[in-house]
């Protein structure tokens, strides 16, 4: 499974009084990764709304391995698991660019709701078709070892 990649540099407002990135910011970096990947396929939140769906996050996990520090250049790697049920599960990895060290990894699951709040138990055909190019892209061989 291929991971999509995007980069950013740790900002002053992201570090705590110990000079390390506060743990909550990793989740916002996951969001950067997700928006970058989904934006390539016109699957941003407003695209979902236009199709008549919300996709709220219902589960989130993050494991911290090493701290990121001020001005570190980090790599956010993002992928989506092929759905086995009516949910989208994203996987994330946060790496330090200078030595390729894995700093954190995480997973987030989104379910599908209609705009009037009905939760879908089956992915609708129109959304399946819109998601297909994303999964085709993610099935290509990963360029990073």
């Amino acid at each position, binding site marked *: 499974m291929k991971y999509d990649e995007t980069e950013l540099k740790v900002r002053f407002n992201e570090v705590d009084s110990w000079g390390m990135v506060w743990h909550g910011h990793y989740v916002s970096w996951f969001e950067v990764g997700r928006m970058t990947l989904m934006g390539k396929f016109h699957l941003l939140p407003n695209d979902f709304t236009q199709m008549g769906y919300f996709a709220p996050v219902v*589960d989130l996990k993050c494991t911290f391995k090493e701290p990121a520090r001020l001005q570190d250049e980090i790599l956010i790697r993002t992928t989506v698991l092929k759905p086995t049920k009516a949910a989208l599960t994203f996987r994330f990895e946060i790496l330090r660019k200078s030595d390729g060290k894995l700093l954190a990894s995480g997973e987030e699951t989104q379910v599908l709701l209609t705009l009037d709040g009905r939760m879908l138990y089956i992915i609708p055909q129109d959304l399946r078709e819109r998601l297909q190019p994303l999964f085709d892209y993610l099935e290509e061989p990963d360029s990073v070892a």
Partner: protein
Amino acid sequence: MFSAISVVKDFRKGFWMSEDLVLELKKLIIQTLKLEEITPEDIQDDGQLFGNGLGLDSIDALELVVALEKAYRVVIPDSEVGKRVFHSVKTLAQFVREESGKEWKP
């Protein structure tokens, strides 16, 4: 006319009406959701599956929908139907009995 198909059909009819289906659904719930510390006896026929009952959540519902479709070829499209069907094992069994009868073609 007697045929192997009618025997199978009668057997299935009997199965759908029996308590075996309720037990089988309890086992399916435990197995699908990997509820290792729960036995079928712990799940009450009328007890709530979600919320304060067995404590299942929305992701559990999605897992169960897939397992039920595989096992019984029944489709639960959304939470509107799900609320009624997943109320308890009893309501789930009733739904499976009704919907499988419709879907099943020898």
